[in-house]
């Protein structure tokens, strides 16, 4: 069966520090991969999605970047964190079919102080 791992679960970082969140998927190949951010009262905002290695689409301009160095690995990064980067970050994957749902990791709670 497929599983998705996301770490760390919680993270407290000072403003201006770098960020690296990692997500890996097991049990499937060539998935679509996603990073979402959830801010209080604002629902889920799609940040990046990837349909293959090295292929990243950005949904909103921001202080973050994403990379997909391997088929089942998706990394969210920042060179210098801002206070506004605080939130709950969720990684997800889906199959490449028209009617598929997304499967989510457990999330990372990022607090920038």
């Amino acid at each position, binding site marked *: 069966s497929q599983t998705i791992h996301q770490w760390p679960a919680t993270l407290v970082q000072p403003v201006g520090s770098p960020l690296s969140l990692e997500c890996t998927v097991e049990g499937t190949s060539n998935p679509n991969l996603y990073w979402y951010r959830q801010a209080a*009262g604002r629902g889920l905002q*799609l940040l990046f999605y990837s349909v293959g290695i090295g292929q990243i689409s950005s949904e909103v301009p921001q202080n973050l970047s994403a990379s997909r160095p391997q088929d089942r690995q998706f990394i969210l990064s920042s060179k210098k964190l801002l206070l506004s980067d605080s939130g709950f970050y*969720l990684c997800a994957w889906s199959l490449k079919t*028209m009617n598929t749902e997304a499967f989510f990791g457990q*999330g990372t709670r990022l607090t920038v102080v």
Partner: protein
Amino acid sequence: AQSVTQLDSQVPVFEEAPVELRCNYSSSVSVYLFWYVQYPNQGLQLLLKYLSGSTLVKGINGFEAEFNKSQTSFHLRKPSVHISDTAEYFCAVSVGFQKLVFGTGTRLLVSP
């Protein structure tokens, strides 16, 4: 572009009462619709999905939703809620195979 509207940010209800969480979508093409549930500090779990066929979709934990194309709605219902149903519920729409667009969520608060 497709979008999802969840008008109710919070819905308080007593245990064993029925509940309906509203979701409206906008899209000019055929859509696939989903409801997810999120418990505190956890990821999202799929409750149910509408792909095609019967407009009444049954999901896990006794939830069901009805797809109404003319009203562009996909409301979630449960005839009798439990305390354990307290969570945040997200409606989502998928067009194509690349991404899901989510609503802003509805917090269901079940009290004894």
